[in-house]
């Protein structure tokens, strides 16, 4: 029983990490109907920002998360202003999509040049503190991951539901032209979307850094799962993304326990194919045509 409970905890931790990464992806897709392949590298850069803040500057880990959030946001603004926005103005969906791949490769190689290929040991002061209860355990770092995920989800919901900008974002994601006619500037909101999504990615990186292997390729190792989660949850659907993230996390931990880690990808991606075949709108269907 303790093992079952322990794997549930492990699954929720893993799922929370995936949700943190996937939320930014689904936000960008929801507003722009665009897949952002550079998201993984913003996650990685967020992890490195926090790492150097903690181990280079000597700052605390929690402030390091805030630093990664800000760095991610600034990067999102810069990349959108310099690359994506000009390409979108030229029209077509393919150019910005290809550009996200280009930005991703450029960032990955820049990080390889700056930080080198050797894995960094990102020691959060909470990684080695273990809380044990009833035959189960959780590190303080993992408890922090769950807490930050819950807080982030709550704040994002509140932002989208109760603030003018959040409502405007939802309006743009539902119908950009009509939103424009209502006096909303879609370009500014697209920029805001990139900034929020990238800030979330940066923060996710800071949370992931101490858990995963920190190299210039760290984000790439989670982004494939994050894409799968966005598809399983329903492109652009927050609720679906959260549900799918937790589901994938739990599938991973229980598959490891009962079938072996070698089966994880088979099961997760089989689920993805099944979802595409029988429910392409995702776990929670949203009332919008683009979601089909």
């Amino acid at each position: 029983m303790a093992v079952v409970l322990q794997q549930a905890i492990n699954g929720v931790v893993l799922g929370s990490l995936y949700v943190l990464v996937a939320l930014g992806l689904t936000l960008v897709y929801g507003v722009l109907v665009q897949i952002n392949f550079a998201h993984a590298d913003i996650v990685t850069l967020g992890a490195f920002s926090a790492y150097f803040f903690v181990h280079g500057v000597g700052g605390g880990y929690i402030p390091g998360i805030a630093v990664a959030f800000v760095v991610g946001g600034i990067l999102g603004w810069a990349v959108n202003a310099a690359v994506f926005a000009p390409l979108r103005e030229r029209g077509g969906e393919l150019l910005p999509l290809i550009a996200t791949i280009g930005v991703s490769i450029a960032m990955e190689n820049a990080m390889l040049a700056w930080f080198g290929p050797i894995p960094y040991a990102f020691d959060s002061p909470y990684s080695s503190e273990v809380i044990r209860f009833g035959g189960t355990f959780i590190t303080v770092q993992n408890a922090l991951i769950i807490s930050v995920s819950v807080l982030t989800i709550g704040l994002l919901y509140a932002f989208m539901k109760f603030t003018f900008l959040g409502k405007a974002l939802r309006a743009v994601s539902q119908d950009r032209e009509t939103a424009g006619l209502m006096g909303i500037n879609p370009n500014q909101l697209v920029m805001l979307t990139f900034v929020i999504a990238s800030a979330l990615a940066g923060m996710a990186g800071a949370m992931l850094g101490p858990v995963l292997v920190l190299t210039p390729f760290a984000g790439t190792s989670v982004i494939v799962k994050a894409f799968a989660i966005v598809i399983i949850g329903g492109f652009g659907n927050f609720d679906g993304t959260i549900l799918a993230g937790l589901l994938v996390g739990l599938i991973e931990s229980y598959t490891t326990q009962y079938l072996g880690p070698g089966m994880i990808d088979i099961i997760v991606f089989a689920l993805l194919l099944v979802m595409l075949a029988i429910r392409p709108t995702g776990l929670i269907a949203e009332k919008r045509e683009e979601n089909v």
Partner: protein
Amino acid sequence: MVMRLRVCCLAAGAIAAALVVTSTAVRAEDQIIKIGALLPMSGPGSYFGAQDRQGIELALDEINKTGVSGYKFEVKFEDSACSPLPATQAAKRLLDQYKPDVVIGEECSDATLAIMPLMELAKVPLLNAGSSSIRITEPGNPWTFRIMPNEVMQGVDIATHAYKRLDARTAVLLYENTNAGIGNARVFNDTFTKLGGKVLADIGFGRDINDFTSIATRVAGVGKIDVIPTYTLEGQGLKITQALSQAGVTKGGGGQAIQLGTIWLPFGFEQKAGKAALGYIRIVQFDPTDERALVRNFVVAFKAKYRQDPTHLHAHAYDQIILIADTVKRGAKDAQSIRDGLAATKSFSGVTGSVEFDKTNQNDKMDTIHYMETLPDLSWKALKWN
């Protein structure tokens, strides 16, 4: 007329000078041994390439000061990414464009296995120092040589020591699903069970797994474990060690199990893993406390050049270049004669240990296997097991 004569003289002089320069250039080119290096410079195994390069460049500095038998050495690096497809592409590029006399690499067995047929076809010797799969030298390939102990040599040795010296009777195997990972785990399993030990769980995983808490949870649930042989690259190795400690399985987390490893991890791993690495016993290919003058000189030169301590990766890359230079000293000057020189190597003494190839071109000297154990202060001590 005088003017025309001067112009003619100048032109003749220029032509003569050009001929001299050209012939010198050709002679200089003829006196160079071209070494291709297929190493992972990107991806999760890129720490191999980064460290190998330092060892190679140190060796080049030393042998190119005076040259060897009139030859200088140059190295062309290509990124083979620790993976078969990029390794094959890099090998083709190297063979087609650079036309090396000898190639060193790769570190990962899957990549090495992929490039071996290309080297054989091109009749260029491949000198390997970092891949452990038995398939590289069994049944044997006339163009591939390995100075590193293979998975059988390492696996049999460590399993025997685990059973006899550590009194281990139960084990859990953790390994990446690659030729090297699977092969190393299999050899340990076979040897350990033959001796009377029991393998409680056999857990393979992909290189894309990063969070090992679930695996550690599973390991914690299998019963009393004495040893956990682990075969992964450094990044995953760090996370496994930390997860096993957090789950209370290994000594670092208050448990009883001792993690065991073979030549996969560089020095410095302990400092990165922290106290989770306490009691970790692993094979390294190089013992920096070795008192031989050769090793002392290498350590001093390495520290002087890079202001850091050398790892076994630096050491085996350094040895590869010095061994090639040794074949040149013995008369080799092209791919065929370097191959023959490697095959004829007798008791070459490198910083990692001795080298002498058997009929499969495997270095059969066991003094390249060194053991080390992580101490509570995260330093380590050499275990004189071999």
